[in-house]
Structure formats: structure tokens, C-alpha cells
């Protein structure tokens, strides 16, 4: 066995890391699951399917789905322009893509309100509407598809496209038949990440949603409201649904990626 590769004894370091992770992350999440089910499965189901909670979950999933479709199109297009096009200021545009990751979510919500809110200069007002919530979700999820498609597009072999073009394929056909199949896994994984993020997003939504039950109240806002009004059980139940969906998504992406890597090798 190789010796002395970690600075401290590896087992000690492993135990410390696990303890830290457990105290900060695992124990609290376990508490959520426990609280959600401490009245039995029936109570959990009842809380999840109560009209308001159910409406919040359905709205969240529907909005996340729409946002993901728009992201798939816009993200791929932006990645394409950033890789294949040349124009002055491209580097700056490339840097700006990460802005939603760096900008605090509450600021993101505020910026959208400033432009598209009641006192915005454009005369449109999306505050307290589903469109507004969707806009916030689009803002915070923008980088996911761009950043996962971009490197794949850079690595792509241009010769295959040139060969297809030389065989008489028109640009759109080349894109659909040659480029898109290679990008599809990256688009899918970017969409998965964006979907998971959209499901749980709170900060950017809170100012735009207005928290109108059955209209603009998304799941995270619902959970927040229940915590504030001390209905912790309902909050925990809806949280568990959110957790389960995000986890399944991230796990699926991880598995798909490792499976694909193995196949390519």
C-alpha cells in the first residue's frame, strides 16, 4: 500500500470531513424527511395533496418545464454564437453569461422588477404574474445550458460538418444531422441542472411572485410561508417532494455522464 499520501492520517481526515458534512448538511436534511413523515405516510400524502401545496408544486414543475425548453433553445444558440461567431466584445459577452451565478438572487429579482415592474420605463408590468416568475427563473438558470454546451461545441470536429456540406447538405441539415446529435447529451445535462435549480429557486422569485396562492405561489415560496406561519409539517412535506425530484435529477445526470464517459472510452 502506498504510504503517507494525505497530510494527516487519511482515515482521520475522512472522519472529520464526514462529520462536518453530517452536521451541516446530512443531519438537517434527515430532519426534514423525518418531520415530513412523522405523522405517517397518510399525513405526508395529505399535506402534499392539500390544494394550496399541490397547486404550488404543479405550478413550479410547469414553470420549470417551460423555462427549461426556452433555455435549451436560447442556451444552445448563445453557446453557438460564442463559439462559432466572431464579433467585437465577444470575450465580455462570454464573461457576462456567469452573471446570474455571481449575482445574489434577491438582486436578480430586483433588477427584473426595475425594468419590467410597475414603474419600469417600458410600460410592461410582469410583477405578481406567472410571466414574472418565469422571467426570474430564466434569469437564474441562463448559464447552465450555455456552459455545458460550449465546451462540447469547441471540441467538435469541424471536418464532419464540412464533409456533410461537401456532400450537398444545407446548413440547417448539417446542424440537425451532424451537430445536434453530438450536443444532445450536453443540452440534456444543462437542462437537468436548470430544472433542478428552477424547482428550488426562491430569492429571485420572492419579489416578483407576490405570493398569490393558486396563481403565482411557487413551491419554495409556499414552503417559506408555511415556515413563517409555523405549519412546519406542510413545509417539510413539500420540501421532501422538491428534494426528491432534484436528487433524482442530479443522480440521473451523474449516472448518464459516467455511463457516457465509459462508452466513449
Amino acid at each position, binding site marked *: 500500500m502506498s504510504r503517507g499520501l494525505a497530510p494527516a492520517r487519511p482515515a482521520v481526515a*475522512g472522519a472529520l470531513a464526514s462529520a462536518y458534512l453530517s452536521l451541516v448538511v446530512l443531519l438537517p436534511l434527515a430532519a*426534514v424527511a423525518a418531520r415530513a413523515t412523522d405523522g405517517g405516510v397518510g399525513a405526508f400524502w395529505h399535506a402534499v395533496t392539500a390544494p394550496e401545496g399541490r397547486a404550488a408544486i404543479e405550478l413550479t414543475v410547469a414553470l420549470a418545464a417551460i423555462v427549461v425548453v426556452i433555455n435549451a433553445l436560447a442556451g444552445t444558440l448563445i453557446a453557438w454564437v460564442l463559439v462559432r461567431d466572431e464579433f467585437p466584445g465577444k470575450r465580455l459577452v462570454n464573461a457576462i453569461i456567469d452573471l446570474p451565478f455571481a449575482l445574489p438572487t434577491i438582486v436578480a429579482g430586483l433588477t427584473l422588477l426595475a425594468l419590467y415592474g410597475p414603474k419600469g420605463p417600458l410600460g410592461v408590468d410582469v410583477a405578481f404574474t406567472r410571466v414574472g416568475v418565469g422571467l426570474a427563473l430564466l434569469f437564474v438558470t441562463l448559464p447552465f445550458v450555455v456552459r455545458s454546451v460550449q465546451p462540447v461545441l469547441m471540441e467538435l470536429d469541424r471536418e464532419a460538418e464540412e464533409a456533410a456540406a461537401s456532400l450537398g447538405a444545407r446548413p440547417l441539415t448539417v446542424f440537425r444531422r451532424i451537430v445536434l446529435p453530438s450536443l444532445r447529451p450536453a443540452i440534456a445535462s444543462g437542462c437537468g441542472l436548470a430544472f433542478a435549480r428552477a424547482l428550488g429557486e426562491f430569492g429571485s422569485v420572492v419579489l416578483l411572485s407576490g405570493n398569490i396562492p393558486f396563481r403565482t405561489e411557487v413551491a419554495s415560496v409556499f414552503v417559506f410561508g408555511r415556515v413563517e406561519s409555523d405549519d412546519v409539517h406542510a413545509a417539510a412535506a413539500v420540501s421532501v417532494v422538491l428534494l426528491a425530484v432534484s436528487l433524482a435529477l442530479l443522480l440521473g445526470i*451523474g449516472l448518464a455522464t459516467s455511463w457516457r464517459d465509459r462508452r466513449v472510452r
Partner: protein
Amino acid sequence: MSARTSRLGLRTVALGYLAALLVAPVGMVFYRAFEHGFAAAWHAVTTPDALHAFWLTVLMVAIAVPANAVFGVGAALVIVRGRFRGRALLGALIDLPFAVSPVVVGLALILVYGRDGWLGGWLTDHGIRVIFSTPGIALATIFVSLPFVAREVVPVLREIGTDQEQAAHTLGASGWQTFWRVTLPAIRWGLAYGVILTTARALGEFGAVSVVSGKLAGQTQTLTLFVEDRFQSFDLTGAYAAAVVLAALAVAVIGVLTLLDRRRAP
């Protein structure tokens, strides 16, 4: 349609989308913040509550970043170099915070560290207040920014391999000497990148902090909570000015990341 016009068309659509979604709204916040002059904006972010919120945020960064940097480097070493069972599980669990809604993070912390939480009784008996107090905000900040350093350092550690460390051992360096003189310098750009991402997230966390803080102005209000509070109180200049402070920090973060990207490129 020629290749040139279609290229121009695609470019226009992509840049237009970015302008409408990102650039114009952010620009609008800057405009609104300084609409009534620089003095008004300055005044809004130098009130006692604003200053307190700013320093509380700085304190949170000062706690979360070192804690997660030490944890991240240690965990990365364990994941890449360790041999104990369950290191693969540790690697998978580290990403967990990314899958959790900030509001759920807050709720989860309340359920463990709150008055009626799993550890709440014991903490109360010992006079330790976590939720609705600074420790709770710190825990929430640590939770949401936990994976960044480990995620950046793991691939770098994989890439450098163990040769340099073994060479250091044969040259007489102890485990710690090897870590400080060989391993740490080798991962420094990855670590720096992770630290910047951690900082950005810690500065900007809102949802989780919002749940656990109690939002007492001048006490448990961070800068992001201050923005919301000012907005809800119809003090728009205050909200926009504080938002501009945070946005400027975000822009600085992106600038540093872009520079680091160039350093990291071989």
C-alpha cells in the same frame, strides 16, 4: 439567405436575448440607484442598519469561506487520495447542497438547531442560540456554499497525480511539509477559483438566511435581507443602492474568475 446574413441573424437574436434578460435589467438597477444623485445612494447605504448588514455579511463570508476551504481541500484529498470505504459516497454527498432549495436549507436547519429541533433542547440548556441568531446565519451560509472548493480542487488533484508528492517524500519531506510545499501550491489556482465561487455564494445567499435569521434590522439582517427589507418598506433608493453594492461585488467576482481562467490555462 446567405451564410453571412443567417450568422448575423443568429448573433442578433442571441445578443438581444442576453440584453433583454441580463444587461438591461442590471443596467436599470444601476440607473435607479443613482437616479436621485450619488449622495442619496451613498446616504442610503451608510445608514446604521445598512452598515450593520454590510459588516454582518462580511462576517458571514469570513466564517464560511475559511471553513469551507479547509473542508473542501480536506474532502478533496480524501476523495482522490483516500482509501477508506465510503469515499465515493462522500464524493456524491458533497454536491447535495446544490440540489436543495435555499428555503429547504433554512427549514432543515431549524428542524435540527431550532428551539424544538433535534439538538435544540441541548443547545438551549447550554445557553446557545443558533436559529434567529448569527450562528444560524453562518450555518446556512456554510451549507449553501459548501461544495464549491471541493468541486474545483478534486479534478486538479486527479490531474497532478501523486508523483510530485512521492518525490517530496523520498527527498525527506514530512506529510505536512509535502502538503504545504508541494500539494497546496499545485492546487492553488483551483483552490482560488473555488474560494471565489464560495465568496460569491456566501455574499449573495438570501433564501436560507431569510428563513433562519429572524430578519431583525441591525441585528440579524445581512445585506441581501436588507435589500428585501428596504424594497418592502418602499425605500426604493435604499434597496437599489444596496443592490448595486452587491451587483458590483458580483461583477468583481466575474472579473477575478476571468483572470483566474487565464492563469489556469496551461
